């Protein structure tokens, strides 16, 4: 379990990083290394060059505005959880971020792994890919040609596969703010605490001005090849929060997903969990939406 030989570059600027990525065919960005290094050690990946972006300045900030939260490429998972003004501001504007991040792995991994790295890694079992989808987020991609914004729908192509090709560094991920009169919840079931989820669910419930359910959206982990957002509104539309049949929304969700089975869970079991987690998280999110509507 030793990686194959690779060259290593630790550029001091984004330009330099892009230069190396351009010059060295098969170069790969290294951020927190929590996904990439195990792949190298098992020789499942053997990039010719690693471009370590950890010394590139300016990528380690969490910027929160009324529009949403912008998370820089070097912000560690823990940066959204830790007791800090940045994390608190982010949690206020988009609470889903911290709620989901709390389910990512264990502290040691959260201290190194990055939110953006998780997204670039495009693992449909990851929390952050689902959150980016559910919030309707996007990433900023720097290439030698300049910067562009790539929406989540255009980013995720397949398991561990994004649309990014050629020399590119994701400089940040942007998570739009939770809309007015909305609440969110996140829950997952894993075999052991901190493991990748067997199934997870993130939901957003939005109420109308009469405090009736106006919109319900959900995104799931470890279900399907790429993150998807499912609209469950029709099951509960127009219902008051305490009169909504969240189980019906769960049942609808079960018909919309197409999970795979693996050694930890059958497809049927995942489908079961989609229903249960949907029902449980919706009740919680709706309660939050009600609270935020009252406020």
């Amino acid at each position, binding site marked *: 379990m*030793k990686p194959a030989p690779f060259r290593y570059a630790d550029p001091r600027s984004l330009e330099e990083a892009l230069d190396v990525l351009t010059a060295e065919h098969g170069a790969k960005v290294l951020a927190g290394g929590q996904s990439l290094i195990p792949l190298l050690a098992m*020789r499942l990946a053997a990039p010719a060059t690693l471009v370590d972006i950890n010394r590139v300045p300016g990528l380690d900030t969490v910027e929160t505005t009324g529009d949403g939260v912008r998370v820089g490429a070097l912000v560690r998972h823990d940066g959204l959880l830790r007791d800090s003004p940045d994390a608190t501001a982010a949690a206020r504007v988009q609470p889903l971020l911290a709620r989901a991040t709390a389910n990512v792995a264990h502290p040691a991994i959260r201290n190194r792994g990055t939110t953006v790295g998780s997204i670039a890694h495009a693992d449909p079992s990851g929390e952050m890919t689902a959150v980016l989808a559910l919030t309707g987020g996007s990433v900023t991609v720097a290439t030698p040609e300049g910067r562009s914004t790539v929406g989540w729908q255009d980013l995720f192509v397949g398991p561990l596969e994004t649309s990014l090709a050629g020399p590119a560094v994701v400089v940040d991920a942007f998570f739009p703010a939770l809309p007015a009169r909305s609440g969110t919840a996140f829950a997952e079931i894993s075999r*052991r605490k*901190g493991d990748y989820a067997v199934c997870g669910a993130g939901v957003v419930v939005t109420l109308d001005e009469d405090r009736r359910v106006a919109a319900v959206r959900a995104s799931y982990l470890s279900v399907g090849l790429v993150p998807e957002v499912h609209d469950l509104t029709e099951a509960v539309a127009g219902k008051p929060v305490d009169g909504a049949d969240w189980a019906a929304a769960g049942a609808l969700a079960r018909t919309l997903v197409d999970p795979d089975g693996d050694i930890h*869970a059958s497809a049927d079991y995942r489908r079961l*969990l989609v229903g249960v987690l949907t029902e449980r998280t919706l009740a919680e999110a709706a309660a939050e939406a009600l609270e935020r509507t009252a406020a």
Partner: protein
Amino acid sequence: MTTKLFGEPVRRREDARLITGKGRYLDDLGAGALAAAFVRSPHAHARVTDVDVEAALDVEGLVAIYTYEDLTGPMAEPMPVLIPHPQLHAPRTGYALANGVVHHVGEPVVMVVATDRYVAEDAADRIAVSYEELPVVVGVDAAREARATVHDDVPDNVAARHHQETGDVEPALAAAPHTLSFTQYIERSACMPLEGKGVHARWDADDGSLRVHSSTQASTSVRAAIAAKLELSLDRVEVIAPDVGGGFGVKIVHPWPEELLVPMAAIRLGREVKWAEDRREHFISSAHERQQRQEITVGFDDDGRITALDVHVWHDNGAYTPYGIIVPIITATQLVGPYAIPVYRVVVESVYTNTVIVTPYRGAGRPQGCYAMERTMDRIADALGLDRAEVRRRNLITPDQFPYDHRLTFQDGRPVIYDSGDYPGLLDKLVALVGWDEAGALRADAQARGKLLGIGMALYVEGTGPGPYEGGHVQVLGSGKVLVSTGLTSQGQGHETVFAQIVASELGVPIDDVEVHTGDTRRFGYAVGTFASRAAVMSGNAVALAARGVREKALRIAADVLEADPADLEIDEGQVQVKGTPGASIPLRTVAVLSNPLRYAFDQAAQQATQFVTHDDSKPPVAPGDAPGLEHRDYYSPIRSTFASGAHAAVVEIDPRTWEIDVVRYAVVHDCGNVVNPMIVEGQVQGGVAQGVGGALYERMAYDGDGQLQNASFMDFLMPYASEVPDIAIDHQETPSPLNPLGIKGAGEAGVIPGTAAIASAIEDAVGRRITSMPISPTELYDLMRDETAERTAGSQQVPLQTGVPA
């Protein structure tokens, strides 16, 4: 007396070293050594048709490549059948490097030696081995069906047919008022020590000697195996087990191919060579345990008393049988547990599969035996509508029945005669500790929270401390330091502390003066190894006897000096003194100096022992039959094993929507005779329970039909984290063993034995469906619950869940 530390919760002296990173493990040695890596078979069953090393030859830093063709003499022969047995009629072992056919994924085919492990793996990557694939046998059922064979010349895949019976079982079953027959399964798991295996070898060409460090549980026997296989004289080979990061059984197997190949390469190259196993190698080329199919028929009366028991076990032994049939014999003989079974017959068919070998993993066949017996008890209770604790109580061997002869032959070839125990006592304590009789209230409370609650128990008896022997050496130096040595190895259990406690207590010295060494053939050449919960029983008694020998000699010498009768002397805090006469004393270290008559005084203390200082002209300085030095070597060899016992209970809560299973309460009552160190025993129990929970709910070896292990990493092989292990309530009972001087029984493996049985029982109690296969995960429980054909227990009426489960 302050030095009587036997029985005290002395803190583990090895911990400071081990938990602050100061341990000296295999991979900490030989920083400049060449590194070995292996090309291993990617196929479960295949003929090697070609090995092409060409592409590897220009890797910079490559030093050597070995294939089977390079092996000579005994190295070219099959690996030894370590424990032969007359009923192992078709033993098969592999070769150090594959010779023709590979029989499981992970078998070593080519050895590469290079300047470091990275380079060795680079070169290994470039070696192209061609295979012709052969039909694959995976799982005990496929092996039974024998549509394909693992070894050409074993057409039924049966390696051994082990058979024991204590009476005529068929008429006894025919006469039984009730009988039940059922089949159940238990899956594979593995030891998974944090440190994998590892070997480092250094050949001293000038001296013609070999020094090998191995992360082993049996250094003396590894030494003998290396000497035999490499055709070296035993006195030219030293084997040392450094700090070892866990063993749990996998490191008792030896010699591993790497344990022979690394020294071979070191000799041929005249360079230090090291191999440290990585995790993937450990998964696919070390050892697993536990898979069995158990077919059980039991006869019992209206009270639930067993009248006859007939068990047929199909045991998956993997591709080879280097460790003989120890695991199936233990299952066969320990299955009966604490119960009096009037007539018992057991047949174990040990079958080959194209998977990693099966050798002892903590518990070593006992968890399976316990699972068979305890689930039988649950079935009887369910059939008769009796309380499960009550059925067990009615079948227990009673305290007045000891020594109790089961009329079976144990893994050491000796009779299964229980030396002592109090099984009703265990059961009573367990019932109280877990709150067995309050289960109804717990169930109602859980139900109010939307959960299903179940409770289960399992009892076991564990034969521990089998022979043939262990030895101990105790020596008092002139500095007052007491050196203790035993050949048996340590893997972090706390041997240094326990043996020091024993010697300090026996000798009457401060524990800080005692230094313990284990597993080093330079210090102690005769030993068997660490397995079967035998360290405290075997080496504990051996070092106690050695310490008693030293004490006797010390008193004799001191009596001369103090002009007293040895019987009037005592040793306390390192001082030999006349009882009741303050001041009339001599330090033990001075006795040590005097024990060695000297011509030369190399230091101040030594002057006391030189020839013009000591006087008595009437005797030679060293009396006939005596020896210089204050030291003694002694051995403990038991007539047979001593039998520890225990009882566990688990309370589980199950979410009836997600089928997540949570062990919310776990109780252990434990009896290992006299306890040397209760803190260490509790630690052993806790660790064992963690592994028991792992085996019941999380761990399995997920082989696919092609014999590929799909979960060969810690990401997918789910050992429980601390967050999955319940808090454990522990109560002790001490029934001393009459068989050994210290009255102790083994404690190392016990914690793991009843986990699977107790948790299966608790889940069955919670959901009212028969649990016939373990481990069980939420996804499997969900499948069981929505399977209309799944058997409901009679007790299922009390389960709140009566409606079907949505598909």
